[in-house]
């Protein structure tokens, strides 16, 4: 457990020192959202209706953007090799890195979401629901992304491939995440579904990603 905490701390420190990663991500997230009104016209009513979907897409894209950094640097400087030979299982290492990845890519986006809500003229209630759905759904996106990053870590030109592989799997999260807003009678079914997807994928992805890291480098 302390090893997991140590790896988590290392990741956060590294990100904190090199600095601008999270900020760039937030900038990208807000910009994607801000470009939308130009693409579909500044009709406030239409924007308000589409806003939850736009926020989801923007969050989705910015999380994919940050994927490549997950294992790449560790692979390049040999840290990953040390992790594989460490006394704690590789799955635990992957879990710690996944947690750090969520804190570094999903959390800033969640914090920046009120800004986008104002720009897209969302009302308070639907912003609250979107935030809740994002909070529950982003762990699943990070988990699938971790597999994608682990699978493509050995590739020189694999930057886009990880997202392409994991995008189809993330579609259910998007469906139910946006479904939270469109459901009529205030039923919590889509929300529970998103939470279930996150729980299952967070439990299952460290194993798949660790397997990919192991078989990819022998």
């Amino acid at each position, binding site marked *: 457990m302390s090893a997991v905490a140590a790896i988590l701390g290392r990741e956060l420190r590294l990100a904190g020192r090199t600095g601008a990663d999270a900020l760039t991500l937030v900038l990208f997230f807000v910009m994607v959202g801000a470009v939308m009104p130009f693409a579909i016209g500044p009709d406030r009513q239409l924007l308000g209706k589409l806003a939850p979907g736009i926020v989801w897409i923007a969050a989705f894209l910015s999380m994919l953007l940050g994927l490549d950094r997950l294992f790449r640097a560790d692979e390049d400087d040999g840290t990953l090799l040390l992790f594989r030979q460490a006394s704690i299982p590789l799955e635990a290492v992957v879990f710690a890195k996944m947690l750090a990845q969520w804190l570094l890519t999903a959390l800033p986006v969640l914090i920046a979401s009120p800004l986008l809500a104002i720009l897209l003229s969302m009302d308070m209630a639907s912003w609250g629901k979107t935030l809740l759905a994002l909070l529950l759904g982003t762990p699943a996106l990070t988990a699938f992304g971790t597999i994608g990053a682990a699978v493509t870590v050995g590739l020189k030109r694999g930057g886009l491939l990880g997202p392409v592989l994991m995008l189809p*799997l993330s579609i259910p999260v998007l469906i139910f995440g946006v479904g939270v807003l469109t459901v009529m009678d205030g039923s919590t079914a889509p929300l529970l579904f998103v939470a279930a997807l996150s729980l299952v994928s967070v439990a299952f992805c460290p194993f798949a990603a660790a397997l*990919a890291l192991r078989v990819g480098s022998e």
Partner: protein
Amino acid sequence: MTLDSAAPKANWFSRLAHPGNFMAWSRPLLWPLGVFTTLVFAAGLWFAFYNSPADYQMGDTVRIMYIHVPNAWLSQFVYGVMFVAALGTLVWRHPLADVAQKAAAPLGATFTALALYSGSLWGRPTWGTFWEWDGRMTSTLVLFFIYLGIIALWRAFDDQLRAARIVAVVTLVGALDIPVIKFSVDWWNTLHQPASILTPAGPTMPASILTPLFIMMLGFTLLFLLLHLISMRTEILRRRTDSLSRQAAARSA
């Protein structure tokens, strides 16, 4: 310790699947299998076009089913083959499983594309739309994307042995989509009709429609097996030429 026990005799499974042996036993199979597939297709098409009734609601468009359903069935069956081959790669380190995996992916993608295409041709006259974001269509489209991703991943690696293991992991993860496709018509009650062949109460179609359907499904499955064998052989030959040209380059250097 005798020499004999040090090198255990290979069981029939490994003997059957050794690449060299595979090339030997699969060669005489190709022509008979090809002829048989053609005959089954001829019979199936004759039944489908001349010897089966038009549907009382859909009319002659029901005949699209004889193409659509076999392709949809194969889109999932091929993934099943890839799943088993992926297990073969990861668990048994089987050299032929790598080849089987790689050869199946483009075939699966093609059958899935044909299922989507024939489905949308069928959907236009019967539902009035080429496409609807209904559970089964969405999940089949996702399957198509997964196939394409797997093909792209194969092509991104230089070292095919390593690629096989990595792709195997992705194949196992992507298999989550298969049960979703199967049960999508039960979970979401939408446009696509529910299961009508494998139901607890037996098929819901009359024998006059079921017969051509089963013949066509058999024909398409045989076609897949034939194409799979051929492209596995091609892949093995390609690897041989690769290693030969590497050897030649090493010698000349």
